[in-house]
């Protein structure tokens, strides 16, 4: 490995840490390699003498990251006292029904959101159908010699066409957003449960 490769890997490995500290370390190691080369080592040997870049990175990261506060793993595992356990069992009819009601409310709100989206799509569909209906009317009216009513119908068809195009983009956008938000909500909920499993 060349000096430049070593220093670049070091810099990349330390990205995210305070820049001034990283620069100082990179120049420190650069100086170390230069001094070895000056003593007669080849560049490869000088870099090898420093040690594996991964080791240097992990050691530096450990030194530059402030020590973590004591994590729950050290805290004794919480076991519920007996009276709390009894209270939970006795209170089951109360807390379970409340929990179920809360879940039902959230679910119904979610259904309402989708109902609104579906009605918007229906509006969009009716506008699109209206375009063709108006266009058909234009043909019929003009064929029977009614020029002005036909013109009015043409105007209506154009208006509906514009409306349906705008509505289409709005519908697609809102539907996509809702799907993405749903995914995020489900994932974060899932992650919370998985984390609890792991911490057990």
């Amino acid at each position, binding site marked *: 490995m060349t000096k430049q490769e070593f220093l670049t890997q070091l810099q990349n490995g330390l990205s995210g840490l305070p820049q001034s500290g990283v620069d100082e*370390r990179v*120049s*420190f*190691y650069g*100086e*170390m390699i*230069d*001094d*070895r080369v*000056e*003593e007669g080592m080849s560049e490869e040997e000088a870099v090898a003498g*420093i*040690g594996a870049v991964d080791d*240097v990175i992990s*050691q*530096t990261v450990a*030194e530059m990251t402030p020590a973590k506060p004591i994590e729950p793993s050290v805290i004794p595992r919480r076991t519920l006292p007996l009276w709390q356990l009894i209270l939970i069992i006795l209170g089951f009819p109360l807390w379970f029904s409340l929990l179920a009601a809360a879940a039902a409310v959230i679910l119904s709100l979610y259904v309402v959101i989708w109902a609104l989206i579906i009605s918007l799509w229906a509006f969009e569909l009716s506008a699109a159908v209206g375009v063709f209906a108006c266009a058909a009317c234009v043909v019929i009216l003009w064929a029977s010699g009614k020029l002005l009513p036909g013109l009015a119908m043409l105007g209506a068809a154009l208006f509906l066409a514009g409306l349906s195009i705008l509505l289409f983009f709005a519908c697609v956008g809102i539907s996509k957003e809702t799907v993405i938000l749903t995914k995020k909500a489900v994932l974060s909920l899932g992650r919370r449960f998985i984390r609890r499993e792991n911490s057990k």
Partner: protein
Amino acid sequence: MDIQLKRGFLEICVLAAIKNEDSYGYRIIKDLKPYIELSESTLYTILKRLESGGLLTVRTAEHDGRLRKYYHITEAGLRRIEDFKAEWKELISIYQFVIKEDHHD
């Protein structure tokens, strides 16, 4: 050597390596090599700690067309070495106590 024990010794060793004249990173490692193993990253941490503790100062000087950092011991650094010498007597007596325990077995 035990890491905790070694850490305390390394600071003194680095100070001793720059006691008589200013020195630079690689030379400190070379000078200490016969006595105590010292990696670059450990040296960096020790130099930083000694600098922030006011036991040494750093200056950058040009050498052979590039920059090199030289470390200079301060009064406080010299005092730290003297303190260590005083503590050493205590350490020797502890060592002798440990040896004596060994002989009993």
